[in-house]
Structure formats: C-alpha cells, structure tokens
C-alpha cells in the first residue's frame, strides 16, 4: 500500500501506542506553559514572583522559563540593581 507523504505518522500510530507517561508529560508542560504565559501577560516577572504565583519549586520555574525563552515565547528583561536576578517578559 502506498503511504502518502506528509501523513506517514498515521502508519506508525497504527503500530505503536504512545505511552501514558508521555501524554502526562505533555499535559503537564501545557499546564505550566499556560500558567507562565498568563502570569507574564499581566506584567514582567522575576523567577521568585513566578514561583509564588505558580506555586512551583524555583528550579522547575527556571527550567520551564528557560525552555519557553528557547521556544520563542518569552524574553529576558532587565536585571535588578544588585545584578543578581533578571525579570522576564512575553516576547512580542
């Protein structure tokens, strides 16, 4: 049977089930992404502020925020007077 180019994923979908853990990780990423982008819509935020707003551990906020910067949703803002912590804002 000829498999149509651009739709070959369907062929693998018939043979292979996506593990539940992968689906759960995607849901978790989407939930965190939405939370972060919503928080940043209001105003620029520091990692500390996002940690409190999202009720997440700081290392996780750093990891997901840096990922969102890499994916082009967020950008780095100003650094504070002590040159220690940056603010982060939505990429327009």
């Amino acid at each position, binding site marked *: 049977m000829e498999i149509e180019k651009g739709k*070959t994923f369907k062929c693998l979908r018939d043979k292979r089930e996506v593990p539940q853990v992968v689906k759960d*990780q995607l849901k978790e990423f989407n939930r965190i992404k939405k939370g972060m982008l919503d928080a940043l819509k209001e105003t620029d935020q520091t990692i500390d502020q996002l940690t409190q707003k999202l009720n997440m551990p*700081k290392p996780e906020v750093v990891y997901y925020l840096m990922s969102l910067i890499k994916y082009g949703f967020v950008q780095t803002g100003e650094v504070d007077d002590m040159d220690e912590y940056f603010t982060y804002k939505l990429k327009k």
Partner: protein
Amino acid sequence: MMSGQSKNISFDALVVGGGIAGGEAALNLASTGFKVLLVEKELSIGGKMIMLSKVFPTLDCAACITTPKVSEISRHPNITIYTGSEVGNINKIAENNFEATIIRKPRYVVIEDCTACQLCEQACPVSVPDQYQYNLVGRKAAFIPFSIASPKAAAIDIDNCILCGACEKVCPTNCIDFTQETEEIQISVKTVILATGFKLFDPLLMPRYGFGLFKNVITSMQMERELAPTRPFNTVLRPGDGKVPDKIAYVLCTGSRDASIGNPICSQICCMYSIKQSQLLMGALPMADVTIYYLNIRSFGKGFEEFYQQAKGMGVNFVKGKIGKIRETENGNGNLILRYEDINEGIVKEAEHDMVILSVGVLPNQDASGFFPKEELKLDPYKFIYQADSLISPARTSIDGVFVAGTASGPMDIPDSILSAGSASAEAISYLIQE
C-alpha cells in the same frame, strides 16, 4: 522494529566513533585514498569537543575549530557517515578481512531532504529535557540536536513523540518519514579503528557532594554549556533560582584519583578545563569570586603552567583542600557550604559559595569490548582499550588490524587525541598496504 532487508557493502576501513579522534583518523585515511565508513551513535558527529565553549590553554573557540573539521569530514567523497548507528559485532575472517554488522536506528527524517528550517521544532508540542544542553533546558521531540550539528538535520525522538503529525504537516520538503525502520547493515572492511571516546563520571555516585539534590551543584559539562555561545541561558545563572552567581567553587578530582569510587587514576584534563572555565567566568562575571579546591594542579602540557599562573594573576583563588561534604545553607537562599580539609594547614574548614561546579573525571567507555565475539579485545587494568605496544606502536590493540585512537585508550586532552588519531590512521594505512 527491524527491517528484514540487509545491505552488504565494502569499505577499506571502519572507524567507530565520530568524535575528534575518529573524525581525524577517518580524514587521514580518506585523504590517502581509502574508503572509510564512520559510525557514530549520536545524531551528530563532533563528539564532546563540539559541545565545548573554548579550548585550553589557547582559549580558542572550540566550535570554530570543530565546525570546519566536521564539515571537511562530512563532505569528503571517501567518507560515508552513519549517525544514530551502532556496531553490532565485528568478526575477523582473516588478515585484511573483517565483517561487521551495523545497526542503523531510524531518525524518521530523510537527512538529504531536510533544510534545517526548524518548522517541525516550532510545531512540535512536546518538551523534554535537552540532553545536548545537559538537561538545563528543554527541547522538542522533533528537533535539531544543536545549532552546529553535522548533519544539520532534524530528528524525531520517537520515545517522547505523541505521533500527532504536526511536524509532518508543516515540513516544506516532506522529509519526515515515520515509516523508517531500524536497518541491519552487513559490511566488509579491511581494518578497524576504535575511537569510542570516554564517559564522564556520574556525580550521583558521590551523594556527599549533593549533585541532583542541591540544584546549584552542577557538573563541569553543564558549566561548559553555560559558557558556550549556544548556551541554554542568557548568561551564567544558577539552575536553582536563576540568580547570577558571584561566589563560585570548583571541586577538582570529582570521580578521579579516588579508589573508593573505583577510579584511582588522574583524568588529565580536569585541572586545565577548570582553570579555563574559571578564566571564562572571570570574563563573563567580572565581579565574581572563583575558588578552585584541588589536591594537586597538574599543569603538565605545553603552555599549561603559564595558563595556571595566568588564572592566579586574574584573581582565581586556589585552595589545596579535599572536600568532605557539601550541604545547603539552612536559610533557603540556595547557597552551599563546603566542608573541607585545608591540606596546607591540616585543619577542617567550611566555606560558603553560591554555586559549586564538580570537575567530573574521565571514565572508560567499555562499549568496544563487546564488539568482537570471536576475538579478545584486551582492556587495561582501568578498562580502557589495551595498547599492545604503547611505546613503539601505540595504536595497536590485542587484535591485529584493529587500532585505537584518542581517549578510548586512556584520558588525554584534545591535541593528544588528534596525535593519537594520526598514529592510528598511520598504522592502519601501513596495515592496509601490507595486504
């Protein structure tokens, strides 16, 4: 999945490992007119060197050295490259006659058709830790390994793919192909060069240093990425809270010169790469204090001692001390207390730092020992590939016609790896022309 089809092709040489040593050996053979198959298990050639920020002691940009070399290897008409592939087994039939099985895993992308436009990356909804950034940041399931990867083509991480088809829908060249299957390729070669490189010590095996538990304790490879132009963050930051660090400690000999964790030998590169990173940190963060805790500084190579003195002159603090334990401060600021024996004074001291880098050591990659079911590839007492005559013929192994290049035979720096690759290719050529 394994496709039933198998190919049978011939080359003069099989080079296992596409790092700087394997690449150099392949280039030398190819430039002499021999046909080479270069097999690399990762999605890109370039090995660990392509991931580095700069090299010591010259502080030349690592990518600027590696990229042209990798490009030359990729374009050479006498070199065939299989990335994402592993050696199944190698059998010696006779002198100048080896048969090998190569397992080529599906990339789910037709490399020749991919333009590296990254539209698949943008469309992919999945985010998982990026192994090429040492898990400091995420990557997509449809991804280009890193910006200077070779081949620069996308790949699908099928273990984390949700098979939504978003990547395929946006691909302008229809290069994504989920029908690809694992291929088993039978090849005939006349000689083999093993350039399987080394592994880095996993600091989780030393729980007293708190790696994994305290997020501001990172490895030297993670810091290497933070200092590279293609870094995961906008500047050097603590992964624990995104703070710009200003009191940084290096712990040398993490997983080296330590019989208690099974690696009694010196890794030969940790002192110098730590000194290199300390100088780069002083440049990136001019206000930062950098302290290196060491047992002995082994600055044995050309220009190394001057490089060490240069770091001292820049203000890097060197403390001759053995770290016993690292713990987090109790006030929750993420800082770390290093408890150590000051070797010069003979007393136990404590010091607070806001980031700790573990200078992890070099361990043998023992993959090659499983390649030869019918012959014995001897390993040395430290499980690196045994050099049958390390003084006169350093690339010879215990199997005639099989040669070793680079750190597969023991810890060494980049120039020595390239020299070793030169030796391996010269000996392989000598073996080939005796046919």
